């Protein structure tokens, strides 16, 4: 069952093309990560799918209806990229306000615990730290027990422990059949949760497919080893990151690269040849990312 869909969607802001003929959908129970550099069209996609923007060209649907209709939004939760909270309202009041819009809201105690908000319920939302505000913003997306959530960079500014807890909750939500639309710059987060990936650049889809398809599309292998040499060139590969004495290469032909490493007489140890991560694949497909 299709939860949300863009069909040949185009949007522009003056001379800037935010989306050009973009089509993709989110199925029930599926997590789709929409990735790309700033200005790629990720947020515009989310705004179209959640009814915040009117589509200029093409079609958009949410549960088969126009997302601008409140009825279509009965089963979704949204975390916008920037959701500043209203003046003089407490955390508990904001959650109660959001929950009142849904017929069977999520268990409040569980929600507060998952987002580390239990002790903050009586505090003014604007007095929370940036990370706590972000956690509240994500909690609001889940408070209505929705069938699908739309999360625009949900973990920006959240500390590692809270981020870990938050992802545990999101994974549990997905296992229970919830659909997820995710935009993020943390590619390891996307890799952890996404079934499918849509790569956008300048409003156009560069590549879309399952996580596996995206990784395979670039045919890259990661070669990692430790060495006292910090700068070297190997055949069929380009140097990636350096972490202390640990060097990473992205190789188009792993056999050739390893052969050239051995032949180079460079002293190395702890050699690893790994399949490409999503981050490696995205770096290949979107060099400007």
């Amino acid at each position, binding site marked *: 069952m299709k939860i949300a869909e863009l069909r040949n969607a185009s949007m522009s802001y003056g001379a800037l093309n935010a989306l050009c003929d973009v089509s993709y959908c989110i199925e029930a129970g599926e997590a789709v990560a929409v990735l790309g550099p700033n200005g790629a069209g990720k947020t515009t996609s989310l705004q179209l799918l959640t009814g915040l923007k009117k589509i200029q060209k093409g079609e958009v649907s949410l549960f088969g209806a126009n997302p601008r209709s409140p009825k279509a*939004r009965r089963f979704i939760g949204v975390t*916008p990229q920037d*959701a500043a*909270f*209203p003046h003089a309202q407490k955390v508990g009041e904001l959650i109660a*306000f959001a929950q009142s*819009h849904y017929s069977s809201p999520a268990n409040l105690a569980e929600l507060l615990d998952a987002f580390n908000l239990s002790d903050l319920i009586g505090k003014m939302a604007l007095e929370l730290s940036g990370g706590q505000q972000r956690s509240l*913003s994500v909690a*609001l997306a889940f408070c209505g027990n929705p069938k699908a959530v739309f999360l625009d960079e949900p973990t920006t500014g959240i500390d590692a422990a809270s981020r870990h807890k938050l992802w545990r909750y999101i994974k549990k939500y997905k296992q229970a059949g919830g659909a997820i639309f995710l935009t993020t710059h943390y590619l390891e987060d996307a890799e952890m949760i996404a079934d499918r990936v849509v790569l956008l650049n300048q409003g156009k889809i560069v590549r879309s497919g399952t996580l596996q398809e995206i990784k395979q599309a670039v045919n890259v292998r990661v070669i990692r080893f430790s060495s006292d040499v910090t700068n070297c060139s190997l055949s069929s590969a380009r140097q990636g990151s350096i972490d202390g004495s640990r060097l990473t290469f992205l190789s188009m032909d792993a056999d050739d690269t390893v052969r050239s490493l051995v032949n180079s007489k460079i002293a190395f140890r702890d050699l690893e040849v790994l399949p490409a991560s999503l981050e490696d694949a995205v770096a290949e497909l979107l060099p400007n990312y």
Partner: protein
Amino acid sequence: MKIYRAHILATLIPLLRTPAYWVPIVIFPTLLYSFFGMSASQENEEVANVLMASWSVFAVIGIGFFQFGISIAQARESKWEDYARTLPAGGMARFVAQIVAAIFFLALALTLLWGFSGFASAVNLSLMQYLKLLGVLLIGAVPFVFIGAALGYSVPARGALPIANLLYLPLAYLGGLLLPPQMLPSIVSTISPFTPTRQLGELGWAVVLNTPFPIWSVMGLVGFSVISGIIAVVMWKRDDTLKTR
């Protein structure tokens, strides 16, 4: 119903926690009445009733301009609105919440003003007159609500407050609410009947003096309601288009 209740509470609670908002609209009419209307309201019952009606109209226009003008302008710029618009509720819940908040603050302002004037001046009205005056003020608030909404949808929040103040006091003066119409300079008294404040003032004075409503003021208020209503809707549509395109 649950959604409407939630929106009403979400509108009222932050306003009640913000004295800078409610003190001017709830307290000022009574405070200004005590400064400028009290001394003339001690002996003559009729004068006292008219002055109390004038300051009641003053309270109504303040709420129309500030509750709708400034609140709408602030809400338009709030990022929270972006989240709120993704919730499964139409714009009607937010509009109803604004109306209820306005009625709530108007009730507070009028209770204070009427209580104080009843206690400290020669005001003497029957219960029926009070109820009739309340009805007139609620219906007569419509053009001021629309003017406030048109203002809120057309200017940024930083501009809404000075513009509301620029409209509020001059219109009150032109309408003969701060000084009785017969005491206004001749040029002002020529303009006065064409202002909505004077037109609503005339209706309020008619209630407390037990005279018929002047038809010209009813027609004037209807005209202002239609024109300001059209402007408010056009500005709202324009804002919605800008926000969603």
